[in-house]
């Protein structure tokens, strides 16, 4: 396994947000974590990126433990997160936001290549390259956050609810981009979503979370077709 998170426990003050969660991802996979609001999806990503310390558990990436590293060290190993809620740098231009994504890179030619790739993936960003990020629409900001993540040339990209608060036409565009990133750029992806319909369609495998525990895991296509699962965990809105 490329990424292997074992038995994660995470708490806020005294409330346990994750109670023994194990998640794994193979190289080249898109794995989705789905579940209702408050289930603990973001907490998993924050644990992986060391923004939230673990109570217990372990995380291996590419065969090495990373649960003692700092956020910056984890980013340097190629795990890059596009955080929930479209955290662009609002007062910077689109270009400066993208360049911040490449902050740890020194290969000028490679950075220019990534920039071309991101602007080809999201032509809208090319049109707005000099615009202040905070003045763009929700969907455009989301594209920027994903594009900024790609500028780091990630090996594993963590996407936290990229469809949240985004207009439906943009959701399709973003979904297509995620598939592209995975296929063409060979980036492994963990996709956190409440929009399980979209997530199950484009991912290879899925984990379903309920209040801090994994209640179901399996192939996305199988879960998508399973009537009982749909009703029990996904509010019947899968298709």
């Amino acid at each position, binding site marked *: 396994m490329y990424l292997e998170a074992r038995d994660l426990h995470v708490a806020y003050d005294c409330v346990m947000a994750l109670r023994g969660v194990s998640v794994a991802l193979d190289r080249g996979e898109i794995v989705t974590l789905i579940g209702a609001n408050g289930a603990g999806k973001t907490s998993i990503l924050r644990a992986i990126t060391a923004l939230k310390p673990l109570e217990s558990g372990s995380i291996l990436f590419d065969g090495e433990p990373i649960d003692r590293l700092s*956020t910056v060290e984890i980013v340097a190993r190629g795990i890059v997160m596009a955080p929930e809620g479209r955290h662009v740098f609002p007062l*910077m231009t689109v270009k400066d936001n993208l360049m911040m994504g490449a902050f740890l890179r020194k290969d000028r030619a490679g950075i220019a290549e990534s920039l071309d790739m991101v602007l080809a993936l999201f032509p809208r960003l090319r049109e707005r390259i000099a615009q202040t990020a905070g003045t763009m629409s929700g969907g455009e900001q989301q594209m920027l956050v994903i594009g900024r993540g790609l500028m780091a040339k990630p090996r594993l990209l963590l996407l936290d609810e990229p469809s949240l608060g985004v207009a439906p036409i943009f959701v399709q565009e973003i979904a297509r981009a995620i598939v592209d990133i995975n296929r063409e750029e060979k980036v492994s992806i963990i996709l956190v979503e409440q929009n399980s319909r979209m997530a199950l369609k484009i991912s290879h495998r899925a984990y379903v979370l309920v209040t801090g525990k994994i209640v179901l895991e399996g192939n996305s296509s199988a879960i998508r077709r399973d009537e009982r699962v749909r009703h029990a965990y996904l509010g019947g809105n899968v298709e």
Partner: protein
Amino acid sequence: MGQVLFNGIYTGVQYSLIALGLTLIFSLMNVLNFAHGQLYVLGGFVTYYVYGGMKLPFFVALLASALTLAAVGCLFQIFLFRRVMRRSVREESSMLLSAGTAMMIESLVLIFFGEKHRGVPAVVSGVYELGGVFIPRGRLLVIGLSFLFIVAFILFMRYTKPGRALRAMAQDPETASLMGVNTARYAILGWALAAMLAGMAGAILVPISGVNSGLGNWISIKTFIMIMTGGAGAISGAIAGGLALGMVESLGYHFFPGGETYLIIFIGLIAFLAVRPNGLMGKAV
């Protein structure tokens, strides 16, 4: 009137330079640095010592002030603010700490340099006269240097990688760390820059106004006025606030030589903030 305008610009650009450092620390760390004026005074005394005392060239003294204060800024962050802010859960702790460091620096300056007002020989002498306006060359040098440092600072923040990282950190520290910005290290850089700017402002003014150990609080208060009118946290706000205060002060001293100027300024400030609580530019970097 031309004279009032010139004096306003002269005072305004140096104020803008002083305000930049305060606004930088505020936007990066959410710390209102009460010791900013004391850092300015310390910068002035370093130049007094190196240029006035050791008789080295003025630009060497300016460099010494800049480097000394940058070092002081680093030490502030590493040994004081980082430690306190890691543990504290209340915003007031950082304010109390900065007020404490203000007293500490003031006392140290008093011990090492005494309580006398200190001056040094002028760096350049002579006066231009332009249509009845007297323009001392020394003041022209202050305007030129302040302008140069302000522009250099803006270019640094806009077009260099560390500058971009500092702006990113001010706007969203956690996301900046997700880009790989070592925020602990950049906080030190921020403090070094802010203290350095204050120190350079102090240094370039010694040849004209001199310096004494008790100036610090008054400078800090004036700087608070500038960033409140300009908009706390915004570089453009610091510059606008500095120029505005310089101009108003110059007008005030012209029309009210008796010393009512700051009374009027404070009343005006209260009225202004009632109308525009976020200042001219709002909060932003």
